[in-house]
């Protein structure tokens, strides 16, 4: 297919090396599936059978995985009492009702900028963490990593670890194999369906939805989204795995711009490891590197790469190779950390004999941190001083103005009074800076330029208003008049809600006549 001479045996799954080891370190005679030497543009996916790792980072990753999954699955079930007639789900995106509920916060569609703010915060946070600790997001928190890890765990429960999986793959279709594969895929599908199921709970009342889903009463949209997320979870975490990170995800490309030579990344310390060579008992460690070429870092890698090739786009910094190599070093009686979180700069420093250092405080990190604080402060301020009574004014365009029989000029406006409180409000609508203005509102009592209206609770009340100005008061083709709505009673915080909105009053008149 590639036309070139095929690479030498890309994956040979032999477990024990030819040269008898003089220690109890397991050796693997393999080439990394995604090793730099054999990476091709058009190549069929080589299956990767990552070996289970054990160590500090593996334990940390299990803990983080647990916490994240609990957050994901449990959040929709947290209740939050908001009083009668309002949803009691703590986190709810209500598309039909056009509200976003987040604990005590209720957001309207026009306040979507808070979501924008959250996204900006998340992006800045990602930038900050990337410039400090490299791809920690990829390694620990990304859903692709979390779910793939979970799927791998299930796979090992059923098919065994790497060696058993490879054996199973090579063997013919026995009943045992069919059984194992069936159980595995069923378990994967169940997890995928639960993932899709949990997703829809964020968009509707979870207890109601779960009943509807199982009785077949939920909407086709609900089933559609569950199906879609079931499929993507199954496909991305079960089948595509490392390909998502390597080929689909933009983040590996973007992060290259976020990192610098001071960012921590999972690094093979070649200054210490090379020249690598298998270790024979009694051999001296002088004149050779600490890497004994046992390739345990390669077999645990879920991305199918060899960290010893250097910093690579494929590496998600999951740190499992650190765990693998640390175990080897321990057995060999060498210091841990042949593979470790390190920076380019420190490798450089060590090679020059200078002391290592790691600066948390750098221009880049300070700027990211300050921007985050700034955005967060801005959002908090705007949330705290948020208007719960708002007035939108839309001027009639056709006709722009109407001259009446007595010479006075009339304009029409559609007012939208937005009441974000759960109580009906008696509001006063008035016109400012237009003496002599006469307001007419169908169905409402109006005294000159002041009217009393009722704003429905938690809703937009729309009213059409005519405003007439006597001929003597009109001097220009366009005047500015200001509508104001104010609540009759004070809010819970003691403030009386008021909103003003200036608009144009057109007359077609020029002041010389």
């Amino acid at each position, binding site marked *: *297919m*590639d*036309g*070139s*001479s095929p690479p030498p045996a890309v994956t040979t799954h032999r477990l024990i090396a030819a040269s008898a080891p003089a220690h109890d370190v397991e050796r693997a005679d393999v080439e990394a599936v995604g090793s730099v030497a054999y990476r091709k*543009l*058009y190549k069929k996916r080589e299956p990767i059978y990552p070996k289970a790792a054990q160590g500090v980072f593996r334990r940390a990753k299990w803990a983080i995985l647990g916490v994240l999954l609990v957050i994901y699955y449990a959040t929709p079930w947290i209740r939050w009492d908001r009083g009668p007639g309002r949803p009691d789900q703590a986190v709810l995106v209500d598309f039909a009702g056009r509200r976003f509920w987040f604990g005590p916060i209720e957001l309207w569609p026009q306040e979507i900028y808070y979501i924008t703010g959250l996204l900006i915060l998340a992006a800045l946070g990602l930038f900050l963490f990337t410039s400090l600790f490299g791809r920690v997001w990829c390694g620990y928190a990304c859903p692709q990593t979390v779910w793939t890890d979970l799927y791998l765990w299930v796979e090992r429960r059923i098919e065994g670890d790497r060696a058993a999986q490879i054996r199973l793959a090579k063997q013919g279709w026995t009943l045992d194999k069919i059984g194992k594969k069936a159980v595995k895929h069923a378990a994967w599908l169940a997890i995928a369906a639960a993932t899709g199921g949990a997703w829809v709970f964020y968009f509707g009342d979870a207890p109601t939805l779960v009943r509807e889903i199982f009785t077949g009463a939920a909407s086709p949209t609900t089933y559609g989204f569950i199906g879609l997320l079931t499929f993507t979870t199954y496909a991305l975490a079960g089948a595509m795995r490392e390909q998502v990170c390597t080929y689909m995800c933009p983040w590996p490309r973007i992060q290259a711009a976020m990192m610098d030579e001071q960012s921590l990344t999972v690094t093979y310390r070649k200054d210490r490891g090379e020249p690598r060579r298998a270790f024979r008992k009694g051999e001296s460690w002088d004149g050779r590197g600490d890497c004994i070429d046992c390739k345990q870092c390669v077999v645990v890698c879920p991305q199918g790469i060899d960290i010893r090739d250097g910093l690579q786009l494929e590496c998600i910094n999951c740190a499992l190779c650190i765990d693998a190599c640390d175990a080897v070093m321990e057995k060999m009686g060498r210091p841990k950390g042949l593979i470790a979180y390190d920076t380019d700069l420190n490798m450089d420093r060590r090679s020059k004999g200078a002391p290592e250092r790691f600066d948390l405080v750098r221009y880049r990190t300070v700027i990211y941190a300050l921007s985050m604080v700034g955005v967060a402060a801005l959002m908090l301020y705007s949330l705290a001083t948020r208007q719960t009574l708002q007035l939108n004014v839309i001027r*009639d*365009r*056709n*006709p722009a*103005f*109407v*001259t*009446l*029989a*007595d*010479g*006075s000029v*009339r304009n*029409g406006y559609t007012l939208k009074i937005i009441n974000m409180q759960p109580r009906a409000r008696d509001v006063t609508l008035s016109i400012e800076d237009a003496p002599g203005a*006469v307001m*007419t509102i*169908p*169905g409402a009592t*109006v005294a000159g330029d002041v009217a009393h209206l009722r704003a429905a609770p938690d809703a937009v009340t729309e009213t059409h208003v*005519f405003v*007439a100005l006597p001929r003597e008061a009109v001097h220009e083709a366009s005047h500015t008049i200001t509508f104001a709505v104010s609540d009759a009673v004070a809010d819970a915080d003691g403030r009386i809600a008021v909103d003003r909105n200036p608009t144009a009053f057109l007359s*077609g*008149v*020029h002041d010389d*006549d």
Partner: protein
Amino acid sequence: MSEHKKDIDAHSGVATTGHEWDGIKELDNPLPRWWLIIFYATIAFSVVYWVMMPAWPTLTGFTHGVRNYSDRAVVAQELSALKAQRAPEFERLMQVSAEQAEQDPALMNFARAAGKAAFGDNCATCHGAGAQGGKGYPNLNDNVWLWGGTLDDIEHTIRVGIRSTHADARFSQMPAFGKDGLLTEAQVTDAAEYVVKLAGGPAKDAAAVRGATIFGEQCAACHGADGKGDRTQGAPNLTTGLFLKADPAAVASKDWTSLRGSIVAQITTGSGGVMPTWEQRLDPATIRALAIYVHSLGGGEATVDPAAATPAAAATNPTR
């Protein structure tokens, strides 16, 4: 693409298609499998589609497909469903009087929406999309009415039309004073000058005085001695300055040169516009909805209180 000179690209090791464009060759990589699968799936889909749906033209028509689907039938179905859905509200609209309908917010909203749609389909051609009118076509937003601005007046006008084919059509006829030689050209100019004066314009005194006499003799019978018009015979009020037969821009900006010309032209020709009768075209409920819509545009008058007909009161009509 002859086999014997298969050209292998040195860099990638892939065969090229054999074509060369300004030194650029195309690699002959196989198509991705997923792409091919989708491609074949689309072909399979189109075959299924031909069987299921109308697809091929024939000499006399087209193949209808197993589903016998037709967009036109679907639209017709949706339209009749919509009609059926709205029927109860239209019915309710005819069970109460137009005034009562205006007092009921739900019914009023429905009538306004239905009226607005009907207005756009039927009336906007002449009166404009915003009912703002034009030269010779009344503006329905203001409080100037030739035949009355109450709900009943408006409904009746829509029903029978003006100078239409309907037996009870609203009808008035202004003589073509100039054209038919009833007045000389100078007399027409003088009368026009008096109308300018009535409307509060900068009239030339001597001409206006001469015009006043002519007005008293020729025009007052219909337009009234004070020029305030008479709605019972559709004679316009000449004192407002809102001339129907003048350019609306000139009316708005009080361009008296232009207005004066329009007044002279009107006295000369006595032209009158035509509004069709809608009784045969629209059902009574739609006409009522139209009347309510037009009445709600801002200039509608209250039915009971004749005092409301005074311009200032009508402008700020408190009953609505």
